[in-house]
């Protein structure tokens, strides 16, 4: 039999606008019959970040480096897992609780690769992509501190 040609389109966007998960999944999967598994992760602004009541979150990034850093990790993901498509969208600007912040989509023949690659990408976005969150609450505003648990999550993927 003929093995189908597998391609892995990659889309990386940093934008203020919201994203449409269904549309992004459709873009990845339309007219393809080699994808068996699609995993999506959406990160949403919560009202209770670190036990203070959040009124809003402002996301700042390092233009240029942010895209390049995400690209480096997407490239690592596509070399580590047999992926058929990856989409990463990170929003910047000011958000209120309930609004979308980040989307990671991974497509593969089998679910394990799609799950692992999505988790890998999220762990690296959290700890290595140059984005910073400032939170506003009733008691004032301040920069969100990095979490040790995020460093530990990213460290899981280091090849020994």
């Amino acid at each position, binding site marked *: 039999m003929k093995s189908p040609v597998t391609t892995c389109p990659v889309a990386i966007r940093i934008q203020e606008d919201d994203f449409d998960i269904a549309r992004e999944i459709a873009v990845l999967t339309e007219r393809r019959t080699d994808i068996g598994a699609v995993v999506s992760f959406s990160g949403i602004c919560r009202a209770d970040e670190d036990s203070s009541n959040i009124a809003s979150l402002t996301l700042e990034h390092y233009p240029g480096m942010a895209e390049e850093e995400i690209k480096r990790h997407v490239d690592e993901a596509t070399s580590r897992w047999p992926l058929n498509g990856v989409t990463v969208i990170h929003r910047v600007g000011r958000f209120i609780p309930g609004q979308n912040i980040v989307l990671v989509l991974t497509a593969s023949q089998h679910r394990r690769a799609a799950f692992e690659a999505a988790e890998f990408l999220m762990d690296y976005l959290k700890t290595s992509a140059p984005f910073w*969150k400032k939170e506003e609450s009733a008691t004032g505003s301040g920069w969100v501190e990095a979490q040790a648990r995020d460093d530990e999550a990213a460290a899981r993927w280091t090849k020994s």
Partner: protein
Amino acid sequence: MKVKYFAWVRERIGKAEEMIEPPATVRTVEDLIAWLSSRNEAYAYAFEKPKVIRTAIDHAHVKADAVISGAREIAFFPPMTGG
């Protein structure tokens, strides 16, 4: 070379970027942080805990002992909190 500051490093220094010309004795990222810190209290405050500061040279993460010669753009920022 161009230097950029993000998040609370930017807020403490009071600017997002600037051009600098450090003397030749400033060889590494560590040296540069010390040299900037000596400028005034705003810089000293931004860099008061140098171990917390992350540095990128030309869009790539580097460590404190990285050599800065040849860099076009150096950025200082706190640990990232995206995602």
